[in-house]
């Protein structure tokens, strides 16, 4: 047992740190650090910067722009990126549809979609959840009927993140209504501009517009847009969900948040001293830091155990990372509210052309919206209750 990194690993980390902090566009990092949402253009610029260095899709096969990294290097890449407040490349492109197409798509699909997905020339969104299919995703009802060389798609998706920006959607559709529910699903991709697609925004409790409902009304999709085999879509969906393993804990993001909270709590005054000098506040923060340090070590253990394991094989240990990681992220948003106190109250969304000065300190505006918004992290990607079901079955054998 040797818990030190090798000289090569440390050199890689230093290089990643230097790139993210010195070369990556500073304006984007500052906006992320301040907790402000990025515009579509900024998200695209960010991914293109990463892609120019070959770092947008390191998890992909090498021939499609991936990197031949060890699990430790992947960990360092993510950790340094998160700690530097560099936004991760768009997950829908890079860790969801990209790996599925690279693994199960035909050559023509790979050539057509992968380079554009890596460079965010096409913005992808995910058509999985439906109003009646949340945790029980396999019960989905959106229909794709084969009509000659086309699929006719009817149904509805929900919680479609950033569909308002998307050029393409990857969609789970029922192609065999008679089969067992997991065995009649196909993975179909199509442009969001097709006739019959309606996107309706959903405003969430933070006041923002991230997610949408997407309606399909006799949408005609060329049959060549099927990925892999018909009725095998559930397998591809499981592969897709198993791909995101260690990054899900977002340890680096939480470490950056802890730093930020400490800096801001040094600026805020309680009576005649800084909030950071308040014992109760510091103990609450320290308690989260302890859990975060433990999670970081747990993550390293998972990373080390992954060496020699096949990619795309779901690791139930990632459920632990999700369970703890989500709760820690949520606790930090609570502390961020505590930092700004009453100035978390004014509702002041960022709107174009707005000239009014900010009420309270600049850094207060996102505290409450973040807290509200982050309730999602224990719900999406398989709710924490589903993660517990997975661990109970796969690890404990219950």
């Amino acid at each position, binding site marked *: *047992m040797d818990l030190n990194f090798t000289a090569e690993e440390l050199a890689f980390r230093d290089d990643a740190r230097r790139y993210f902090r010195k070369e990556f566009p500073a304006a984007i990092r500052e906006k992320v650090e301040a907790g402000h949402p990025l515009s579509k253009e900024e998200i695209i610029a960010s991914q293109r910067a990463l892609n120019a260095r070959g770092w947008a899709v390191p998890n992909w096969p090498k021939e499609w722009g991936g990197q031949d990294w060890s699990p430790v290097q992947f960990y360092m890449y993510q950790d340094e990126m998160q700690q530097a407040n560099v936004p991760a490349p768009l997950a829908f492109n890079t860790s969801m549809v990209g790996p599925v197409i690279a693994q199960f798509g035909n050559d023509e699909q790979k050539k057509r979609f992968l380079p554009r997905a890596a460079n965010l020339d096409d913005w992808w969104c995910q058509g999985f959840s439906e109003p009646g299919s949340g945790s029980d995703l396999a019960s989905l009802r959106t229909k794709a009927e084969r009509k000659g060389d086309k699929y006719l798609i009817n149904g509805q998706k929900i919680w479609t993140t950033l569909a308002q920006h998307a050029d393409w959607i990857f969609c789970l559709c029922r192609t065999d209504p008679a089969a067992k529910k997991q065995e009649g699903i196909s993975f179909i991709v199509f442009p969001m501009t097709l006739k019959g697609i309606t996107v309706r925004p959903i405003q969430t409790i933070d006041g923002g517009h991230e997610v949408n409902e997407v309606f399909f009304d006799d949408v005609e999709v060329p049959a060549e847009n099927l990925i892999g085999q018909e009725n095998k879509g559930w397998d591809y969906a499981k592969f897709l969900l198993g791909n995101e393993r260690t990054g899900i804990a977002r340890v680096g993001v939480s470490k950056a948040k802890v730093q930020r909270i400490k800096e801001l709590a040094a600026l805020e005054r309680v009576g005649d001293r*800084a909030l950071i000098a308040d*014992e109760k506040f510091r103990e609450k923060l320290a308690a989260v*830091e302890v859990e975060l*340090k*433990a999670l970081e*070590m747990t993550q390293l253990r998972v990373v080390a155990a992954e060496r020699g394991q096949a990619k795309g094989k779901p690791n139930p240990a990632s459920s632990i990372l999700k369970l703890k990681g989500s709760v820690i992220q949520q606790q930090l948003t609570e502390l961020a509210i505590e930092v700004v106190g009453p100035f978390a109250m004014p509702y002041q969304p960022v709107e174009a052309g707005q000239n009014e000065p900010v009420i309270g300190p600049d850094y207060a505006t996102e505290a409450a919206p973040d807290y509200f918004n982050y309730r999602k992290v224990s719900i999406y990607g398989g709710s924490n209750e589903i993660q517990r079901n997975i661990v109970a079955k796969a690890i404990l*054998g*219950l």
Partner: protein
Amino acid sequence: MDFDFTEEQRLLKDSVDRLIADRYEFEARKKIMAEPDGWSRDIWAQYAELGLLGLPFEERHGGFGGGPVETMLVMEAFGRGLVLEPYLATVILGGGLIRAAGTEEQQAALLPQIAGGKLLLAFAHVERQSRYDLFDVATTAKPSGGGWVLDGAKSVVLHGDCADKILVSARLSGNRRDRDGIGLFLVDAKADGVARRGYPTQDGLRAAEITLSGAKAEAVLGEPGRALPVMERVVDEAIAALSAESVGLLASMQELTVEYLKTRKQFGVTIGSFQALQHRAVDMFVSVEQARSMALFANVMVSETDAAERARAMSAAKVQIGRSGKHVGEEAIQLHGGIGMTMEYKVGHYFKRQTMIDLMFGTADEHLAKLARMGGLFGAAKAA
């Protein structure tokens, strides 16, 4: 970075695991507890044979030259077995203090005796008023005829009842809570002026109240008056070791509970089929894994020479171990139901041991406050 054990470490782990499996069956443990010392001199001799009693010492002192990982392996196995022998008191604390503060002559004289199983030690630092502050020392040391004479009273001295020699913290100068002016003295347990009252602790291990009335010290360890940093370092080593023992306790409780959920039937089904209980079992598992991670962290950081960095890490580990321990222990009892309440079943014994570990060298709450005062773990911004 590599979490795998070396071949040597695997061999060590196998032999310790085997010894504990052989000697520490639940019923056998009851008999060991009933022996006059409350532990087994016979098993102690086996530890010596295996090299465990000299594990962290250098080879020239009859040791094994092991590091924190080796200690961690042994302590985790001792946790699983609910071992009763004075390993922490003699090897980790006693041996640790002699290694850290003793002269070459003192080390050469004492460490081989420990390694051979011939010398039992205890560290007497707790006083009625001190709680967990190592520097809060009212016991006095006065120079006398070229040596030192000690007066005072020490409490809850782990395995102080059976120790051959006792390491005593005593004040040479200054006020009761000064960090300076503390010395570390070696006292023969049978010397004139030393009175001991031994007793079992809640977990079935042993401790003693020790009164010193003009007791003559056999030796002074390190520079008189400047013993505190050495004591702090060795207590950090003890915290790292206890973290590993805790992992053994917690993992055992979690595994026993899952086994029980799989076998206990009510309403015609195994109770492990109930989702309410499955989720609680998963939360226990997550707590154990977090504790295991922090025990690893503690054992990585225990050799850190920057005392403040090391202290931060040990406090963090003690917080996690304490919190995970309380959660896992209380849930283990609850999910077992009535059987968890009896002395006839193992899980309650684990719970009691874990509860005592939280009370040693500062509780989770004390260490959380300490960590907060030190500015936390990440970035460690100093309080304004």
